[in-house]
């Protein structure tokens, strides 16, 4: 008995150590990336990195504002393109689709989730970019925000769909029955009862989608053009801003890390810090909003 209890204690200690690893990793990721970015922050200050548009390492200019704008813009565009479709698909799967149809749609969504991002990037390069290039605007190369946003919209769709579907399914059956008994149609029930009740889950789905969009790297560098510019309209039509090339924070790191040394490398780690902070901000603020809207939600 004594030895058994000793084993118990030992195991508990081992498990405790393995549990601590996750927090250890978080801390070391932060420490290492932050430490490596310190030289750049010391040299240029937060203002010099985050407040400047020009990224020209050869000339000692390391502004990453254009990349922040690029990342945010392409993410927002992907949300606009992808979210309606994703939530429609979720409602369809949870409420409307007959069993047989579900058995076709759900694996399709699952497969979309599993396709490697390089495959999406390649598809974007050889299929989407030439299509987008057909839009007759001077200076439109096909590589740019629009192509990237379409690719990204498809990539975040499965995440948002499957989590939203779960959220809608998790709404107690009695809500739906009560609404239908009161004479509401199925459609009214969906929009006025189920969706409001599932809003915290759908919110969580959106956050994960945003996180995935902000963090996507390989597919982005393959289709967005990687130019370090503030996206701007190509001609008098303001809509052509969507055809502008851009660079994302993730792309900045992946494209240049292998060639960088010294301050340049440090500035790339600073890019990583900004990305890290941006994603933490999205997560924390969105979680706060969800909790305020629905205090009962875990």
């Amino acid at each position, binding site marked *: 008995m004594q030895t058994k209890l000793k084993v118990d204690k030992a195991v508990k200690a081992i498990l405790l150590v393995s549990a601590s690893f996750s927090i250890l990793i978080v801390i070391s990721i932060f420490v290492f990336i932050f430490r490596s970015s310190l030289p750049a922050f010391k040299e240029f200050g937060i203002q010099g990195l985050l407040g400047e548009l*020009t*990224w*020209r*390492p*050869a*000339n000692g200019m390391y502004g990453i504002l254009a990349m922040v704008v690029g990342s945010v813009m392409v993410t927002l565009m992907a949300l606009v393109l992808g979210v309606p479709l994703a939530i429609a698909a979720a409602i369809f799967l949870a409420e409307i689709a007959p069993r047989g149809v579900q058995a076709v749609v759900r694996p399709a969504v699952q497969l979309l989730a599993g396709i490697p991002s390089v495959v999406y990037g390649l598809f974007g*390069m*050889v299929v989407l*970019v*030439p299509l987008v*290039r057909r839009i007759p605007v*001077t*200076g439109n*190369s*096909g*590589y740019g925000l629009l192509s990237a946003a379409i690719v990204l919209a498809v990539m975040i769709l499965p995440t948002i769909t499957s989590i939203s579907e779960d959220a809608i399914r998790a709404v107690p059956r009695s809500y739906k029955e009560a609404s239908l008994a009161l004479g509401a149609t199925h459609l009214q029930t969906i929009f006025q009862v189920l969706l409001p009740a599932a809003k915290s889950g759908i919110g969580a789905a959106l956050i994960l989608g945003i996180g995935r969009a902000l963090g996507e790297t390989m597919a982005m*560098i393959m289709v967005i*053009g*990687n*130019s*370090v*510019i503030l996206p701007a309209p190509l001609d008098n039509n303001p809509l052509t801003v969507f055809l502008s*090339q851009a*660079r994302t924070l993730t792309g900045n790191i*992946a*494209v*240049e890390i*292998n*060639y*960088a*040394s*010294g301050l*340049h490398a440090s500035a790339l780690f600073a890019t990583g810090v900004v990305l890290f902070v941006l994603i933490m901000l999205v997560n924390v603020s969105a979680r706060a909003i969800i909790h305020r809207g629905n205090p009962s939600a875990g």
Partner: protein
Amino acid sequence: MKKLLIALVLIASLLLAACGASEAGETLSITGSTTVQPLAEKLAEGFMSQNQDVQIDVQGGGSSVGVKAAGEGTSDIGMASRDTKEEELNQFPNLQVHVIARDGIAVVVHPENPVNDLTLDQIRDIFSGKIVNWSEVGGPDAAITVVAREEGSGTRDAFMELVMGKDALIMDNAILQSSNGAIRTVVSTTPNAIAFLSFGYLDESTKALSISGAAATEENAANGIYPVVRPLNLLTNGAPEGIVKAFLDYVFSAEGQATVRAEGYIPVK
């Protein structure tokens, strides 16, 4: 649970066994410039066919990584497609530079582009954004899409030095790609694109322009008619010894230099 653990341990030990089993021969690691990489890959294949027990790992990463890897000893040999910088030589004073080939940098366009020749000034103006339409240089009325390598690339550094000069910068709107291959892919699929590309990457998917009448060929580059040429270097920390020396000897042998020529670069011997 136990089964799972046992399975995992088994997998791990199998892996280690598999990894360990082939440990017999010697390994040589080469890291660095993506421009030199394909050439080094070919040379490695040639060397390995003569020395069966040697395995050579050729990794990309870029010229700066190559210099650093050789200097810090994380790789046996570094690759660089540009001259070694002063600060790098200060950091790694034992670094030895071996010029294994010379490489021209071609200015390439889409194969269907009717333009065949540009002057150095025109090229500079196109890449800096002063000339924005192909009609200004005798082509069709279409906007020019400038494609370039990213900051830090050896090819870009060499192009900046040899073509752009001190004052001109590559325009901000340029599409940037992180390897020669990616540049070639973009140019071959973008009708109005222009870019600079290592000679080793030239094929029918892009069209190399002549510069002021000098065609982008190895002969012209070798006898100085073609103006944009830079060295391809292998770097070692200290004098090469043992297998590293054997490999370098092979590179400078008649067979090695024949491979250099066959791959579209200019031999040094």
